[in-house]
């Protein structure tokens, strides 16, 4: 039980850090015109590492945070991120911690879906039909940027995860001995 609380707290801190980094550090630097989607990155990584349910909840809380401070409607980001996190959980059995190729692919696909979702609901419905432009100038750069950041951050997230699992195992072993 303690291990679960511990994991929850650490996950919460990671989500909060991703949010603050995305909104305050990256967004403040005008040289970088496109900001990477760190909340999606964290959601995808946790979904892959821990399966559907964790992906679902991490996506939900990350999205809720984005909604509270960025969305016009509460729940719009929570909806897409929790569905994507859940979807990532299906790939959990197929991937190895050492390889970063599958996470990159899954992350790219999720980014594309996320971009299309925002485009359809915030732009297409208001009569902005030039999807080619939005794809080339916003969705694609954001995807590439996020995947690049994933390669850098992935090791760190896996490391944190491994430490948490080890300490959880040690504790339960102590209990039974």
């Amino acid at each position, binding site marked *: 039980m303690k291990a679960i609380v511990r994991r929850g707290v650490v996950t919460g801190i990671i989500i909060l850090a991703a949010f603050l980094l995305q909104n305050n550090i990256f967004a403040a630097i005008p040289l970088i015109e496109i900001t990477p989607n760190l909340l999606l990155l964290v959601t995808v990584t946790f979904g892959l590492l821990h399966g559907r349910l964790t992906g679902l909840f991490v996506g939900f809380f990350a999205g809720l945070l984005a909604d509270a401070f960025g969305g016009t409607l509460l729940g719009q980001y929570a*909806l897409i991120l929790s569905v994507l996190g859940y979807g990532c959980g299906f790939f959990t059995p197929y991937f190895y911690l050492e390889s970063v190729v599958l996470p990159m692919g899954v992350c790219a696909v999720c980014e594309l879906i996320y971009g299309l979702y925002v485009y359809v609901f915030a*732009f297409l419905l208001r009569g902005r039909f030039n999807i080619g432009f939005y794809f080339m100038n916003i969705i694609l750069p954001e995807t590439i940027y996020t995947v690049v950041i994933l390669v850098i951050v992935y090791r760190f997230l896996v490391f944190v995860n491994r430490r948490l699992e080890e300490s959880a195992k040690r504790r339960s072993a102590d209990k039974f001995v």
Partner: protein
Amino acid sequence: MKDKHKKLRDVPPRHILYAVIVLCAAMIGLTWFFGSTNPVTNVLAKAIIPMQTGLNELGSSLAGQLENLRTLQNAQEENELLREELALLRSENSRLQEQTYELERLRNLVELEDTYSQYTMTAARVIQKDSGNWFHSFLIDKGTEDGIQVGCNVLAGGAEGGLVGIVTSVGDNYARVRAIIDDSSNVGAMVLTDQSNNSCVVSGDLELLTETGCLSLQYIDKGLTVEDGAKILTSNLSSEYLPDILIGYARDVAVDSDNLQQSGYLVPAVDFDDLREVMVILDLKETGEGLEEDGSQPAASETTGETAQDETAQGETGTAGEGE
């Protein structure tokens, strides 16, 4: 406790997914019908805003350092150019100063006060830019505690401040500002000219913004001649924005392909890349005394279509013509 845990495990993940989707849909529906300021945001803001204030300074200083490096290289070339320009401007300045005196005298004559000083304003810091790349809105570090309400106009700090945007939602210690460069922003505006049929609309357009850094300037009367660099101000017909605030400068105004109206580009007066401090006007636009329901109707038309505004513009030009 253990039993409960076990029970949670037994629920198929699919059902939890459905529950979360329904929960999200419910939240979307609730905020759709009951407005954007919600208790969740207000509670979260209490904890997160202080963190952001600190972090934002870090981000800004980081950005400043990078900017310094880059600008140093251009500084010398720019210096020489600026010297030449300075000489030109000096001569022009003396000429303009003369005109300013004349203007002031004329202003007193028609009892127009200095544009912005008549409003009560408060300064606020920008603490968070929007996440993602689709929207242009930001958070400032003041809220209802400082007298800010939804609908307050926001200007860039400094003497010659231009229009930045409008407050769309507000909490105790923060307010959310939609910038005029946002894709969904529409501002009822007018061209500063001595001709009377001078109303127009300034709309944000993400496509245009990415390609040229401009906003779109629409619905200009076909008979009006608009030169490049003409000042565009907020109109007194607008239901959301206070009158006579500088928005930017016109560029490339030409007759539309349908040959009915003119449109062009607007170069904003404010540098949105480097926005750290803003001024919030605490006075709201008055839309008629005791006519709250009537007042809300033009607001809706302003964001959706401009037909209603065009009609009122016609009426206004009529009275203006009579006045002259």
